[in-house]
């Protein structure tokens, strides 16, 4: 009973949303890349002239009605536009703009695309679909997002990150554990895994070939080591990963396993997709701490910024929030201009150096003039000037 209560508290506790935000960026970006890679052969996979016309889909479904906005679409232009919009939703989700709407749109798009042609999906795709559900229902935009920066700028977002309910993050963790635990369970029914020769067979599947491996990898004891090692790591990922003292070592094991698979086998994106989920095993405060420590390593690049005296509070908070590495130290100057200098040398640099060091502002590099406009609109003076106009 105590264990259940403890699980329940863990499941529905509150905490920092930083992990959810960081994970959203990584995962939606990978989803975008994954969609872009499949789009190369769009004609083959999603059109009536392709390998999977709509009529096949209805056979695949059997008696099971499946949600899908492309289920009756035979016009390839409509499908292409839908596909493009889904990619756009992935980008918006990654940068955290209109996060709730864009992440739900991404989920709906992915489900529809997957249901349009399920025969080309691998486990990485399935994991994308499963995790996007949690991203869509989580407060994913509460941190590390343009939504938050815009909210701070306008004064509508809370100054400090508020704790959020962490059940979506817990579901992400449990989902990953389920992936590994059930695959080990499935493998326990296979004699090749039990007799320690499974990886021998996989190494000889030429269609999976990627980079070469040394000859001894296909001899005992290496085959047994890699076979049982796989089972051991997968089992640990399904169980021991929840133990805080063991977590780091178990995750390193997972990274080694998927690093090896990525090197040897041609299973595009799978390793990146599943390993990106490992971040969910860390609390938001821990992830924020990583960034702070990383920033310490780059302290020689730190800047001292004397902001105009008329800098408004909202923009100041937004600029600070956009710098998770803490590489920019803002102070309120006396003048009307932005004065930026390197903390160590005192050398003056342009305000563009601030943009380079503020990860949260990186989306602006697609349109650098926006940075200048942002700075000039951040002071009372500019606001007054605009009203006078």
């Amino acid at each position, binding site marked *: 009973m105590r264990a259940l209560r*403890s699980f329940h*508290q*863990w*499941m*529905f*506790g*509150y*905490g920092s949303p930083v992990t959810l935000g960081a994970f959203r960026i990584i995962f939606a970006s990978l989803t975008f890349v994954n969609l872009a*890679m*499949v789009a190369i052969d769009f004609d*083959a*996979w999603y059109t009536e*002239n*392709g*390998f*999977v*016309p709509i009529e*096949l889909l209805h056979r695949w479904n059997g008696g*099971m*009605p499946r*949600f899908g906005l492309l289920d009756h679409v035979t016009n390839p232009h409509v499908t292409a536009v839908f596909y493009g919009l889904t990619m756009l939703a992935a980008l918006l989700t990654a940068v955290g703009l209109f996060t709730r709407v864009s992440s739900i749109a991404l989920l709906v798009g992915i489900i529809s695309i997957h*249901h349009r042609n399920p*025969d*080309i999906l*691998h*486990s990485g795709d*399935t994991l994308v*679909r*499963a995790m996007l*559900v949690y991203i869509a229902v989580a407060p994913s935009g509460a941190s590390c997002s343009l939504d938050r920066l815009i909210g701070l700028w306008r004064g509508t977002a809370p100054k400090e990150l*508020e704790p959020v*309910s962490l*059940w979506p993050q817990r*579901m992400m963790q449990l*989902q990953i554990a*389920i*992936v590994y635990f*059930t*695959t080990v*369970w*499935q493998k*326990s*029914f*296979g004699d090749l895994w039990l007799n320690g*020769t*499974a990886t*021998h*067979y*996989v190494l*000889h*599947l*030429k*269609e*999976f070939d*990627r980079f070469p491996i040394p000859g001894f990898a296909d001899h*005992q004891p290496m*085959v047994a080591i890699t076979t049982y090692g796989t089972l051991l790591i997968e089992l640990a990922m399904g169980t021991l990963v*929840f133990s805080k003292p063991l977590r780091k070592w178990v995750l390193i094991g997972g990274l080694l396993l998927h690093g090896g698979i990525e090197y040897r086998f*041609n299973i*595009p994106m799978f390793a990146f997709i599943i390993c990106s989920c490992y971040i969910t095993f860390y609390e938001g405060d821990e992830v924020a701490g990583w960034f702070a420590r990383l920033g310490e390593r780059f302290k020689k690049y730190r800047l001292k910024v004397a902001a105009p005296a008329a800098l408004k509070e909202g923009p100041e908070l937004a600029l600070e929030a956009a710098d998770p590495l803490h590489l920019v130290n803002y102070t309120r100057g006396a003048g009307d201009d932005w004065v930026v200098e390197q903390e160590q040398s005192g050398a003056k640099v342009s305000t563009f150096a601030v943009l380079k060091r503020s990860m949260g502002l990186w989306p602006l590099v697609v349109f650098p003039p926006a940075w200048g406009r942002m700075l000039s609109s951040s002071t009372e003076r500019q606001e007054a000037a605009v009203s006078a106009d």
Partner: protein
Amino acid sequence: MAEQPKNKRKVHWAIMVIVYFHLFMVVSWTLPHPPARVMRKDAHFSLKDAPNYLLKYNDKEIKSSFLAYYMGSTGFWQYWDMFSPNPATRDSWLDAIVEYKDGTKMVYKYPRMYDMSIFEKYFKERYRKFAENAIPDKDSYKWPAIARRVAYLSDKDDTNPPVKVTLRVHYVDVLPMGQKTPEDYTVVPFFVYRVDTERLYRQVHG
């Protein structure tokens, strides 16, 4: 393990119910099928096999019930059977013989990963996955569409269209350790498609 709430807020009970239900369904859906021995009618329960009987119950009473719609219809469905229960022991790839109206024949090379550069195969892997999901006999309903696509891609001349497409699988079975796996692949034609030339013409010319 748990971070204590700092602001006394609580998750609504209805959300808790939904979350636990979803978790239950994900676990149920992803559990493996039980081994054949416990599925037999004359199977007797033993403590050693208790987890397998749990799987049997899950298969029969939950995964096959109306609850299946929750996972299957919504897109929540998922399987984690990577290289399991055993990894594939057969290496296979596809091609097709295309026969034209004038009797000439050509081999259509379905994209084969082994022949591609490391860079190219990273982007084309879906072809391998699709072939894996299309070759088995249970997937024979997909073969005409594959053959039609091959005919469509092979149609270069309106006066000499493809009239017949024969799908072939090339395979080799990987032998156990200590035995040398053959280099040569066995070639098996598995489907012959007589091209509907009018349909093909409409496909090509819109």
